């Protein structure tokens, strides 16, 4: 059994959360709110040391002249966030948001297009190499799958006739994919439980190696 008092704290908190399985109770609530608070506090401290000091404080105080001057513009735009504390001027924060969100949208368009559309379509198109040997059947199944799944999500035409039949095959593919995702999701959730049990049995009780 662990002699580290911190491990005992962690074990108590772990069991406090598990008490929820029996029913919702104040001990669980207490632990849950401690988590919320600590997580915000921890974030703020790291944010200060890793972001504010090296990227704002030091360049402003120790930086050389032209850099310091140019820093003032983004700081001014960023500082509009503080308008939130003055209800009359809180609309000023919209400028800050618009600046970042607009720029991020512009940055993402060409790159998202290449990543999620262009590269994906290019790798779907069957090449002579993909159609030779044993891989041919698998690659054909893949090619058909992409087309029929897209047909399933094509809502500009009623799903009747050829489109209807294609979309139905699309549904079969989608169900296989959802099944795979579901099986994997179960796996993930179980892994999380195994992790906690290992903590209780190994780190706390010391029953397993």
């Amino acid at each position: 059994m662990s002699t580290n008092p911190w491990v005992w704290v962690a074990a108590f908190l772990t069991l406090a959360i598990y008490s929820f399985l029996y029913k919702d109770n104040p001990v669980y609530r207490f632990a849950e709110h401690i988590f919320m608070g600590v997580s915000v506090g921890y974030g703020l401290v790291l944010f200060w040391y890793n972001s504010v000091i090296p990227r704002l404080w030091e360049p402003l105080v120790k930086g050389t002249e032209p850099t310091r001057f140019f820093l003032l513009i983004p700081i001014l735009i960023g500082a509009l966030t503080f308008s939130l504390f003055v209800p009359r001027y809180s609309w000023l924060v919209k400028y800050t948001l618009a600046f970042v969100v607009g720029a991020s949208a512009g940055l993402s368009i060409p790159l998202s297009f290449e990543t999620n559309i262009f590269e994906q379509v290019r790798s779907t198109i069957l090449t002579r190499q993909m159609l030779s040997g044993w891989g041919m059947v698998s690659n054909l199944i893949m090619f058909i799958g992409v087309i029929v799944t897209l047909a399933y999500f094509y809502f500009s035409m009623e799903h009747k006739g050829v489109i209807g039949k294609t979309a139905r095959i699309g549904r079969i593919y989608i169900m296989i994919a959802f099944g795979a995702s579901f099986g994997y999701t179960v796996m993930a959730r179980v892994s999380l439980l195994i992790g906690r049990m290992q903590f209780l049995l190994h780190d706390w009780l010391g029953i397993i190696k």
Partner: protein
Amino acid sequence: MWEKLLRLDRRWIFVLVALSVLIPLLRPLGLPMRTTEPVLNLYTYIDTLKPHDKAVILVTDFDPSTMPELLPMAEAIMRHCFARKIPLILYGGMYPTFVGMAKMALSRVLPDFPDVKYGEDYVFLGYIPGTSLIILSMGESISKTFGNDYYGNKLDSLPLMQRVKNYDQVALVIDLSGSGTPVWWIIYGYQRYGVRVGCGTTAVSAAQYYPYLQTGQFVGMLGGLKGAAEYETLIERAGIPPGRKTASIGMDAQSIVHLMLIFLIILGNIGYFIVRRKR
């Protein structure tokens, strides 16, 4: 009887789940592990990198909510890089609570590698807000993006960072993530700067990432606890100290819980059809 069984208080199922985890942990079966292609690809990619040459960036884009799956991956990859003398840039990820995970992994791995030097063999980067912008900015200059390392040292003062300016001196970025961030690394890192990307993900997202594996946008992938366990097995086979192998230890329990769940699903379905026929 079947109606009663279908309406079983869920707390009985909870007990069953807990037992199926506890028993195999206490009495391991020791089932052998087989490696899969996506894991082997990532392992081989790292294993064939030249020592003391280009760096690997390991990003811990996860918090304790997915720690059991992703922390063993972080540890195993770190061990691999340290043993092969591949310079490592550990980056705490896109959210402040992710940074603690990187620190936790470091504290578990470092004791096994006493000759590894901070600043020369590895560097630890902290948290800066900006998500995708950080990935883009690192492509221009890593030290200008962060300014200081996690501990507050000027990045420019560290020998490793004098050599590694941006992605040009980076062989691979591995994003360990419980969310969609590995795709951001493809979009903003690979597509814009051409840096190679690999990922470690929770099992939840593993099936979704296969399209990126087929295109080669991901070099390889570790999916869930199984992926982590495979990597632990691979480094152990290569003679690298694997640590406690938490993922591998958990795999027996994973097997038993899956069997129990499949049994429950079948039972539930039999009950469902019998009750439906009666009506």
